[in-house]
């Protein structure tokens, strides 16, 4: 089963490698990983998507919590949450396909962020399935390059998800 863990960390050098080292050293799987500063610049938030049965997820959360620099671990899947991912796509945009590409971007509420004589760079945000969908639709037109952020997630309602201690 897939799980989205949201991990609050001390924002110090080397902390990310403690986390990734833990995953590789213990044979846990990382599907995607995103990390950035929070409101408090001394704390960063890491969103990691991982896979495993309940026993494995339990070990992962406990092991993460055992790292001295980890402040809090929340298994987002335990409650309602909103997840988002962003993708930047450079897609072919020749004379005869430009209008088509723009229409697709519009349907997906995307934005053109860069234009060249024969391509658009576009930005789309949404759930992973939405990102997959636009990629599938643009593929026949010719995708030159894709960069995805990996998923980030936030719990719905108050910030009250129980931390795993």
């Amino acid at each position, binding site marked *: 089963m897939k799980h989205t863990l949201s991990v609050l*960390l*001390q924002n110090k*050098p*080397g902390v990310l490698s403690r986390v990734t*080292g833990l995953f590789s*050293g213990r044979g846990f799987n990382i599907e995607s990983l995103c990390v950035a500063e929070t409101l408090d610049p001394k704390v960063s938030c890491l969103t990691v998507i991982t896979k495993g049965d309940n*026993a494995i997820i339990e070990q992962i959360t406990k092991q993460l919590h055992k790292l*001295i620099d980890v402040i809090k671990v929340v298994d987002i899947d335990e409650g309602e949450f909103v997840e988002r991912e962003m993708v930047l796509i450079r897609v072919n945009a020749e004379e005869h396909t430009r209008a088509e590409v723009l229409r697709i971007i519009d349907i997906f509420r995307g934005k053109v962020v860069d234009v060249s004589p024969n391509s658009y760079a576009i930005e789309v945000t949404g759930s992973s399935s939405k990102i997959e969908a636009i990629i599938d639709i643009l593929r026949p037109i010719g995708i030159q390059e894709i960069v995805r952020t990996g998923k980030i997630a936030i719990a719905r309602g108050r910030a009250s998800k129980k931390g795993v201690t």
Partner: protein
Amino acid sequence: MSQISGAQAIVKCLLEENVDTIFGYPGGAVIDLYDELSNCPDLTHVLVRHEQAAVHAADGYARVTGEVGVALLTSGPGATNGVTGIATAYMDSIPIVILTGQVPTPLIGNDAFQEVDIVGITRPCTKHNYLVNSKEELVEVMREAFHVARTGRPGPVLVDLPKDIIKDGIEFEDRKPIRMQSYQPNYEPHMGQVEKACRLITEARKPVLYVGGGVILSDGATELTELATKLNIPVTMTLMGLGAFPGHHELSMGMLGMHGTYTANMAVAESDLLISVGARFDDRVTGKLDTFATNAKIIHIDIDPTSISKNVKVDVPIVADCKKALTAMNSWFNNQQDISVEAEKAKHQDWFNKITNWQELHPLGYQDEGEQIKPQYVVEMLDKLTNGDAIVATEVGQHQMWAAQFYRFSDPRRFLTSGGLGTMGYGFPAAIGAKLARPDKICIDIAGDGSIQMNIQELATARQYNTPVKIAILNNQFLGMVRQWQELFYDKRYASTVMDIAPDFVKLAQAYGAVGLRATKKSEVEDVIKEALAVDNTVLMDFKISREEGVFPMVPAGKSNTEMLLV
């Protein structure tokens, strides 16, 4: 406030932590710190002959005292030489602080001379580690390092000290309570869980206490003994737990697992309640997992939540300090109105009888063969001539298992062995550290002829500090433990395990200015040990044992614990 140098600040921090002895080896990156140490009469620096030994010695010091051991290494190769020692301490949860020198801050990352990313290298084998990034954080990091090493589940903490930070002037601020936002270990047991556990005990008829190193680390041996004797519950110990319960007590079943006693393994297999205290269901203990204690409910007390339900599903987990949890259980039984301790005790009488019967049927034993020296006999004599009260360190191999089986420890903090990592070369330096910490105690390293050669150079250290450690080599001229596996599972193909080219250990000891003694016949063993104990010097005893003796019982790897090969 006046400024002091980083080196002075480090020394002040060590004194604040009541450190009196540190083990180390100098080099360019730490030369300023050594200069400062030589001005400090309150700190003894022990100069080892290899950095691995410095860390093992600090580890031995920590195991016998319960205090944080300290090692000091230079940058680059000094630090990497220490890594085996660090990993050894990590696997056995031993509190040590390792100070390493680092190239000056502006050079970090430039492949400077003797630069190595020791923080990166030791990340997976330390409880935590630090590169001191600025002189402002030096003192805080030093204090945190000791705090993290000794609290919660203890472990090694490394502090990497760039040379410029050791040299620079800083303001030394007074100590204030350490508050770490992301590290607050829990010691107190949840009383609801304690009650659940105690109720389970009252329902059990065939309970077993399965205890590990956590009991020793939490200084909970007295509380454990109280619980076991109050309720008449038989006790088995892991390798790391030996000494947590008196080995001669009628409730002691000795060690369990791969080379555990018949009784302990049978008792666990048949038990209806396994009370695990400070142990972690390691594969050497459980054998084949799906057949381990299948009839038992399981109570698991451990300070580290990751140990709980890692290998075995647990019925009642208690995340707490072992001593505190045991105390809570004892007082529950003492104060519960509806429970009579005498009645509880009586419930286990049949079980106790069965266990006694197993013990009589299959005691630990060996075959005496005339004047051949049996290694088990040597350990028995060591036990007898030291009243089971010596500090015994071991290397790794057959001799380690014989030490665990045949030396009956009456007290905790007496048995120093690399349980988790299984590090050959651990015992001798650990014994030196132990002897320096407890000069009043007899310290013996029970060694193999292979292992002792891994840190034999420490004879010089022992001599330099007049550390009268006694080394007992159970010399089979084999890498015996590996040979035993080859004998049993590889048709006696002894690939690279014959060690018949070795130094004359007696002469080698003498070359270092230590005493060398040898026994080649059973009748010489007692006298050799007596002489070794009488001499006030480092003594190396070379016991030429029967070469192909095996360690039994033995559970082959991957088999169930009840499928023991017996003598």
